[in-house]
């Protein structure tokens, strides 16, 4: 009979008391019930949880505003939870999105397998892998700096969220120096990069850090000056005030107020690319020159923290552009354009009307959508343009952008002084610039539409279909 014995050793059956048996039984049955559902519908559960969380925060915020107006502590806890959850989900979404955008630009598909529909769970799989990966500190590295650097990079960009408004009332701390806090926090982020580069004790990382330092001193000045333009126009550093001033529809957005503002908006966008190390200014981690720049020695979770910081910073600079130049949380529709029959419902004082206002006139959803559109443009630029050389970055920032920004600043000052807001010149400028941008946007949409129709002719039959017999 011995030859029929199992070739493995039977696991020992544990000796359990009655109450332990009961507990194990309950736990096993809960797990047994939950596990198949968890495994079968991960997408539904994940998106359900995210959607539930968003709805929950929205409801609790509404309720707390209505009933708990006095209890700031509770409101703060809720707001911090919401903000950090939002900040945590930006990279999760944006990394997957970037891979899909890049893939479509390059006539590929991008992630398709992980999680089912279009590889939606790709960033989560990456995250789990990176957490479980070895956290390697090189022997020659300065261990303290090396370990600290990711946090010095990540924490400031998350702090920047505290004064970043999502709506007129959707802000954690409505400070009068809100803009300064955000700019300062974006500046601190650089210190982490330099710490990482120096602490890794590798030549490539030092190069990456030095490039970041050079880049920072060159782009921060034009960036700061470009931020001054909306500030001096509105007369406040308070982001909520700046945002509220643009709530009168598409043509009242600050970027369209004067030619100087329009150029400053574009210039700010360029410097913001340099600020969050995006192509064509991705010199600190330029892959074809410096292997992976300041990130060369990082692995696992610390590396992913840098990526978290980068994507959150991308969102922040885009959101700042939206607040300062592109109407903040207000929609392109002016409240004046709402017809009476609709206004009667829309401007009523109840929860449903307020939700509708948020959708039509402006609210956090508009803010997030607009910011993500600018993030999308950042990705678009990254996958189109080659990388600039370091001396060209310094040249363009200091010798081109800086004088330009000074001219713009003086021009805008004079404009504010001499051109009243309701004068004919101001009106014509406003209408010209806003309709120009609108037409450009419509034109882009038209090109995209035609391109979709003519896919075979543009990309070519051979790229769309296989050759007969191939």
């Amino acid at each position, binding site marked *: 009979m011995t030859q029929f014995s199992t070739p493995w050793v039977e696991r020992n059956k544990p000796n359990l008391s009655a109450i332990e048996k009961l507990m194990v039984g309950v736990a096993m049955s809960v797990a047994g019930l939950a596990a198949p559902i968890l495994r079968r519908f991960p997408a539904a559960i994940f998106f359900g949880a995210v959607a539930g969380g968003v709805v929950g925060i929205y409801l609790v915020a509404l309720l707390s505003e209505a009933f708990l107006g006095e209890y700031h502590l509770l409101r703060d806890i809720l707001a911090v939870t919401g903000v950090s959850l939002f900040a945590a989900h930006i990279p999760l979404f944006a990394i997957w999105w970037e891979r899909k955008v890049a893939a479509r630009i390059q006539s590929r598909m991008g992630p398709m397998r992980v999680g089912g529909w279009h590889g939606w769970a790709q960033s989560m799989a990456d995250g789990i892998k990176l957490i479980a990966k070895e956290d390697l500190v090189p022997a020659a590295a300065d261990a303290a700096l090396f370990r600290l650097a990711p946090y010095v990079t990540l924490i400031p960009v998350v702090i920047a969220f505290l004064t970043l408004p999502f709506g007129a009332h959707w802000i954690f701390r409505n400070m009068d120096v809100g803009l300064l806090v955000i700019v300062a926090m974006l500046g601190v982020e650089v210190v982490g990069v330099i710490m990482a580069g120096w602490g890794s004790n590798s030549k490539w990382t030092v190069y990456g850090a030095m490039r970041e330092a050079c880049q920072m001193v060159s782009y921060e000045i034009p960036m700061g000056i470009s931020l001054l333009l909306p500030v001096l126009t509105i007369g406040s550093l308070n982001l909520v005030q700046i945002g509220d001033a643009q709530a009168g529809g598409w043509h009242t957005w600050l970027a369209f107020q004067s030619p100087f503002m329009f150029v400053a908006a574009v210039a700010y966008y360029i410097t913001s690319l340099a600020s969050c190390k995006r192509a064509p200014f*991705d010199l600190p981690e330029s892959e074809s020159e*410096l292997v992976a720049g300041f990130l060369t020695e990082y692995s696992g979770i610390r590396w992913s923290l840098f990526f978290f910081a980068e994507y959150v910073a991308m969102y922040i600079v885009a959101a700042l552009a939206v607040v300062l130049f592109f109407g903040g949380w207000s929609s392109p529709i002016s409240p004046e354009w709402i017809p009476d029959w609709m206004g009667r419902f829309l401007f009523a004082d109840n929860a449903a009307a307020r939700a509708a206002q948020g959708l039509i006139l402006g609210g956090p959803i508009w803010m997030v959508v607009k910011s993500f559109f600018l993030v999308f443009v950042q990705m678009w630029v990254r996958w189109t343009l080659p*990388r600039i050389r370091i001396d060209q970055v310094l040249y363009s920032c200091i010798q081109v952008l800086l004088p330009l920004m000074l001219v713009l600043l003086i021009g805008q000052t004079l404009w504010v002084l001499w051109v009243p807001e309701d004068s004919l010149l101001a009106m014509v400028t406003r209408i010209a610039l806003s309709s120009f941008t609108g037409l450009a946007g419509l034109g882009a949409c038209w090109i995209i539409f035609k391109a979709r129709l003519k896919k075979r002719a543009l990309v070519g039959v051979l790229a769309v279909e296989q050759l007969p017999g191939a």
Partner: protein
Amino acid sequence: MADTVLESAPDLLMDIDRVEQGDVETEELLINMGPQHPATHGVLRLVLRADGEMVIEAVPHIGYLHRCAEKIGENLQPYQYIPYTDRMDYLAGMNNNQAYSIAVERIAGMEVPERAQYLRVIFAELNRIASHLVAFGTYGLDIGAFTAFLYSFREREMVLDLCEAACGARLTYSYITIGGVHDDVPDGWFDRCLEFLDYFDPKIDEYNQLLSFNQIFVKRTAKVGVVSAEDAIAFGLTGPCLRGSGVKWDLRKSTPYDGYEKFDFDIPIGRPGGTDEIPHSVVVGDSWCRYYVRLEEMKQSVNLIRQAIRNCPEGATLAKKNKTVKLPDDEVYVEIENPRGQLGFYIRGDGSSIPARVKARGPSFCNLSIVRHISNNCLIADVAAIVGSLDVVMGEVDR
């Protein structure tokens, strides 16, 4: 070279002057770039002596892919050696087959049927397109434009489909063989090829829009790594690297082989900025010229394939189905125009069917030797631009 760099990076050079006057004490840094580095196209190793971002000297070290091709060549019969030539310049297998086959045909005195010559031209030019596409794509990658690489590979797959239809392999063809080509092309292949050419021709203009005339790209590559015509010849540069320096030299014109004299085509050379559509900041012999010559050559290749398909006669494609070839006691040295330059094969026979010596002159080997000369006093980013513009294939450098 110093004055050309002076124009491309004036600010930094001024800084260095200041440093040399003793304002700041700096130290030189030795950086090991490669053998595993994204910009070194395989296993090239560059040791950079750098002062901050400035590279004072870049010394190439090669041999990390030395696969003993010459030793194998003198141990195998010529027919057996054809697959090894594929693996030398693995981006242009057809051209390598052609070079070795012509060398063996010359020494053994074999004639190639006319149809086989036309097919050789078609496939050599198709492979030239495929090879230049990789050069274009990876150069974009070196400069930081990722998408050009994907576009070039998208079109390259179609070339590979055509080659695969003829010989069944994607990369290592062994299609062109001693005495002709291995097999005739399948029915309807010419139509497919013409369909591809009609599709591909306008794509080259698209590449120009995407990359060649992009301002950032021009800024990165113009006046970087300038090679004068004299230097280019002295260092033995051939192919697009030589033509980029403004020398009108092409073996397909000067010493035609396989019936190239029957075709009508131009030799694109590097032109100074301001003429035609060339950007103003370009000077003859810089990285941009070397890059752009390749794009123009692709147009010429399209033109050549069209002519070859139009005039291709019917007939045999292989001289004789003999699998051994006796090599007389003689020696021969044959060079043909590869996508990267002149690929030469020296074969010495000793009366048996195994050659006594096979020597390959890799064009990339000579092209690479100029790196040390032209990458003095440039930036680290320029080293990637220079090496990329030379378009070396390490399989052929190390053989």
